[in-house]
């Protein structure tokens, strides 16, 4: 009897099995792989998108060109005036037209009809620079645009 009680005493604290831990982590991994996309541009601008309720989704990423407008993250070097970012680097309003033409040329022929320019603009930026960009887009004949925005959280 004494031997029996000794044995059961030993079995009371077994090591916790970590065999299923990799499975759990893999599940998390697959979840993130499915819901996220690769970062395409480096964040050199601080952009807080505005909120809206009447949102549409972009169906095909291949047919979209991105123009970013916001204040530089590195304020000490580039100042705090709003800047335009095209393809990972700072640009001026005059560069927008060439950028859009080039993006349009890179879009596969089948998707040329739904070519869209997505404007990711910080909500604190004033309309002056946005309007200048819009005029350039009109000149470049890229008339379909989408103002990127986040879903508004309703406050009830």
């Amino acid at each position, binding site marked *: 009897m004494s031997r029996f009680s000794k044995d059961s005493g030993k079995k009371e604290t077994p090591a916790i099995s*970590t*065999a299923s*831990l*990799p499975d759990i*982590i*893999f599940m*998390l*991994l697959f979840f*993130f*792989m499915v*819901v*996220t*996309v*690769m*970062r395409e541009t480096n964040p050199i601008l601080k952009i807080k*998108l*505005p909120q*809206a*309720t*009447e*949102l*549409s*989704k*972009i169906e095909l*990423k291949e047919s*979209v060109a991105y123009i970013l407008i916001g204040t530089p993250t590195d304020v000490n070097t580039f100042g705090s005036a709003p800047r335009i970012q095209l393809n990972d680097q700072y640009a001026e309003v005059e560069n927008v037209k060439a950028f859009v033409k080039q993006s349009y040329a890179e879009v596969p022929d089948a998707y040329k009809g739904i070519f*869209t320019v*997505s*404007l990711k*603009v*910080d*909500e*604190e*930026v*004033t*309309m*002056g620079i*946005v*309007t200048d960009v*819009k*005029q350039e*887009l*009109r*000149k470049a*004949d*890229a*008339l*379909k*645009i*989408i*103002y*990127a*925005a*986040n*879903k508004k959280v309703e406050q009830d």
Partner: protein
Amino acid sequence: MARSKTKGAKEIDASSMADIAFLLLIFFLVTTTIDQDKGIIHKLPAWSEEPPPDDVRINDKNLLEILVNANNQLLVEQEYMELDELKDVVIKHLDNRGKLPNFSESPQEAVISLKNDRGTNYGTYIEIQNSLKAAYAEVRDKYALTLTNGSMNYREIDECSDNEDLDSAKRNSCDDLKKKVQEEYPMKISEAEPVNLGGN
């Protein structure tokens, strides 16, 4: 003998598997972003070098004039207004049908003119665009519901006409409905080129 038997069936040590998976997970967390490609669709007018003709006259009744200054204040039809009132006024304007003297005569003729300052905040501008879209969505929804006897709103009709999984007869009927609604409430928003309206 008994001892060697239990030791014989060795398991592969899987404890490092978790570490490897963690490394992969962290890699993906850092290099990816959550997809947030949503926004307000907007169509720009085509560029033309010529100045706009002067004699385009729209009946003052049919025009709802919205001005925004650099302090993000709204002036609708010469009256100061808060942003959250805008949607209701736009709906009133669209659905007036000649009832009130200073709003539109019919939804087909109603035009909204938006003019903002170069100093207006982009956030405010988007809120205004959003209110306009919301107003149009609401009147279109109402009309779509009466057309279909309450079975479909405008968004559902829109989705149905784009849905390639449905058979063509159903899709065409949705397409017709969509056109009908759009003809009843055409979206006519005119945006003037921004000027300095003052206020800064």
